[in-house]
Structure formats: C-alpha cells, structure tokens
C-alpha cells in the first residue's frame, strides 16, 4: 500500500527531525564548517543560518503533502535555496565538488538518523532511500546546472571581450581607419568585424581602411574568402581597402589555394599601407625641419 507507507514515511521523517533537530542541526553545521568554514568561504553565522533555513524548508516540504511532489512550491523553494547557496559559494571561489559532497552528506544524515528507528520495515527503508535519493539528486542536478550556466556565462563574456579587443578599429588619421586582424577569421568573427567596420566607415565618413593581417598565422580558402568579402564590402561603402602584412607563408598558401587578390590594393607592411592611404588622400608626410632624413 504505497499511499499509506508514504504518509507514514513523511511522518516518520518529521518525527525524527522534531526529536533530533538539535543533533541533526549540529551535525550539519559541523560538516558545513569543515567544508566551507576552514576555507573561509562562509562564516560560522552564515553556516548556522543556512543550516536552519535548510531544515525549515525541508520540514515544510515534508509537511506539505503525504508524498514529496516535485511540482509543489515547497520543493521549488528548497531547490531555490540550494541554487542561491551554491551561487553564493561559487562567487566566493567555492568548489563544485565540495558543495556536492555537502548535499550528499545531508542525505546521509537523514538516513543514518532513521536507521536507528526500529519501527521501519524493509519496504519503508527502501522507499525512504528512493525518496531521499530522488530529492537530493534533483538538488545536485540543479547545483550542476547553476555551475555550468555560470561557467558558460563567464566563457561567453570572455569570448566577447576577446572579440572586442582582438579587432580594434582605430581612426589613425582623419578618414583613415586601421583594423589589425589577429588570429583566425571564421564566419562568425567576420560577421562581427564587418558589422563594426562598416558602421564605423559610415559614422566616420572614412575614406581609406587599412586591414593589417600580420597577426594572422594561418590561412585557408574560407578565411581568404572572408578577407575578400570584407575588402569588397569596404569598397561598396565607397572607401578604399588596403590589405597589409601578408606574411610569406600566407602568400605561399594563397598562391597554392589559387586565391586571386587582383584588383585589390596590397602593401607589405602596415607602414607602407598607411603611406598608400595618405597618398590616396593627397597627404604629404615629411620630417619636421631640422630632422635628418629625406622627405617621403
């Protein structure tokens, strides 16, 4: 008779908790101090608060129904408690494995406490084990998800930051933009760079864009295709595109791939590219009077 046994299980758990609350609370607190207190992740007061809140929420969950229903608001509240708890620990540099060990320990405390109760039948023990396992497994899964989400958020933020810093578009002179490209140029990055670059051309009314690929160490047909697309888009915006810094190994790879840069302006170095940009703007750069060196 599952209904009856479940009712009595919840009742048994509540009874055990009421009788041994002080003892259970103290065991949990002790474990918390060992796991989180020694590494200064939580203060003793915080550990006590978390322990009491957990026990209160757990009792509420047991009292809510004859069986633990995962859709009930009491269960959601318990999960939310652990989610916040684990987030707090993660923010303070806590380790996921420590927290999982803590959740497993909580489960063990209840089981060990009930072991001493002679009224429990084999069937009830089995059901109790399954019930507690299912509750704490859900909590462990939540904690894992929180941890993974946080990691994913960090990685996405780092990728975004890397993208921003790896494609700095600078107006080096009135109407002249420079864009050093470092690393690999995949479709997604090309899209981001192109969007930013074209918007800058429009906003700054740029006349020349110098794209420097000194930082590109390898090239394939897709990357070169993206480069050509970028140069065409710049041209369509009415600006001149100058490609600079093609390394010998890149030039060799382009030749092998039969990539034709005919019709596109290329210069060996960024410096040469800038000279070409100035020439196109009719700007003449010469050394200040008194400096040695010839006028360029």
């Amino acid at each position: 008779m599952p209904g009856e046994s479940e009712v009595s299980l919840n009742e048994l758990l509540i009874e055990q908790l009421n009788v041994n609350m002080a003892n259970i609370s103290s065991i949990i607190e002790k474990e918390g101090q060992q796991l989180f207190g020694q590494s200064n992740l939580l203060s003793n007061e915080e550990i006590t608060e978390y322990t009491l809140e957990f026990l209160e929420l757990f009792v509420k969950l047991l009292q809510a129904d004859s069986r633990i229903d995962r859709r009930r608001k009491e269960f959601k509240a318990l999960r939310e408690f652990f989610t916040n708890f684990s987030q707090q620990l993660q923010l303070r540099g806590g380790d996921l494995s420590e927290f999982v060990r803590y959740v497993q320990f909580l489960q063990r405390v209840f089981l060990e406490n009930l072991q001493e109760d002679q009224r429990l039948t084999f069937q009830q023990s089995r059901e109790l084990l399954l019930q507690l396992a299912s509750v704490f497994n859900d909590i462990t899964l939540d904690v894992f998800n929180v941890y993974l989400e946080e990691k994913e958020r960090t990685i996405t933020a780092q990728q975004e930051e890397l993208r921003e810093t790896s494609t700095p578009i600078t107006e080096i002179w009135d109407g002249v933009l420079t864009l050093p490209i470092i690393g690999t140029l995949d479709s997604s990055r090309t899209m981001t760079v192109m969007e930013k670059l074209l918007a800058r051309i429009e906003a700054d009314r740029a006349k020349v864009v110098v794209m420097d690929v000194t930082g590109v160490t390898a090239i394939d047909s897709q990357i070169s295709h993206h480069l050509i697309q970028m140069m065409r888009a710049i041209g369509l915006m009415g600006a001149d595109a100058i490609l600079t810094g093609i390394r010998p190994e890149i030039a060799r790879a382009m030749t092998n791939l039969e990539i034709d840069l005919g019709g596109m302006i290329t210069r060996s170095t960024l410096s040469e590219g800038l000279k070409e940009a100035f020439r196109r703007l009719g700007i003449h750069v010469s050394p200040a009077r008194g400096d040695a060196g010839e006028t360029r």
Partner: protein
Amino acid sequence: MDRLHVTPLGEAQILLEPGEALDPSDSDEDMAQLYAQLQDHGARRLICDLGGLPVVDPVYYGWLERLATLCGVAGMEMVVVNMRPAAAYALARQLDGPPAFACERSVERARRRPLEQPEEGAAGG
C-alpha cells in the same frame, strides 16, 4: 518616373534616386525612359544614390548590373553612393568579383571623381 527620380547635377552628371515603388524585377520600360533622359542631358556620369535602400538582394543587384550595362552602352560611368552598411554587407556576400559599378561614400565625392575624357585633348566636364 516616380520609381526613378532623376536630377541633373550639371557638368554632365545625373543623380538617380530609386524610389520605393521601383520593381527591380520588372523595369525594362523604366530603363528605356532613363536611357532617353540620360541622352537628352548628354550625361557622362550617373550617380545612383542607394541611401534609402536597407538591403541589396540578388534581384536588386541584377537591376544594378543592368543599369551599369546601360551606362556602358551610353558611354557613361556609373557610381553608386551612400550604400548603407547592411546593404554593403549583404551585397559583398553575393559578389564573386568586383561590382559592375564604382562606389563612393557620398554624392559630393562621386561628383569630384575625375571624368574620363571622351577623346584626347577634349575639354573636361
């Protein structure tokens, strides 16, 4: 032609602003009328302002190519101006080679481009 707004700019240069009503897939009649207008003005350069166009799709690019061919037949240079970033981006992805026309950032810059002389020694426009 409300689909194609034509403004003579002087110095044998014509500004063309395609209107929203233009159907790039069915524009033969418009092209013929435009050709007649260009001839009437003795135009040497057609400046096509795409500032109002959000995106260039293959059909629209086909129309621009036909316009460039028409300019070639009339011995004119075609310059597209004011292309918006999204339009340039979309078009760059479609192109296999250089576009069939020149591009400039603004009408003023297109106007300042040196015009090719029709014959050696002739006065410039």
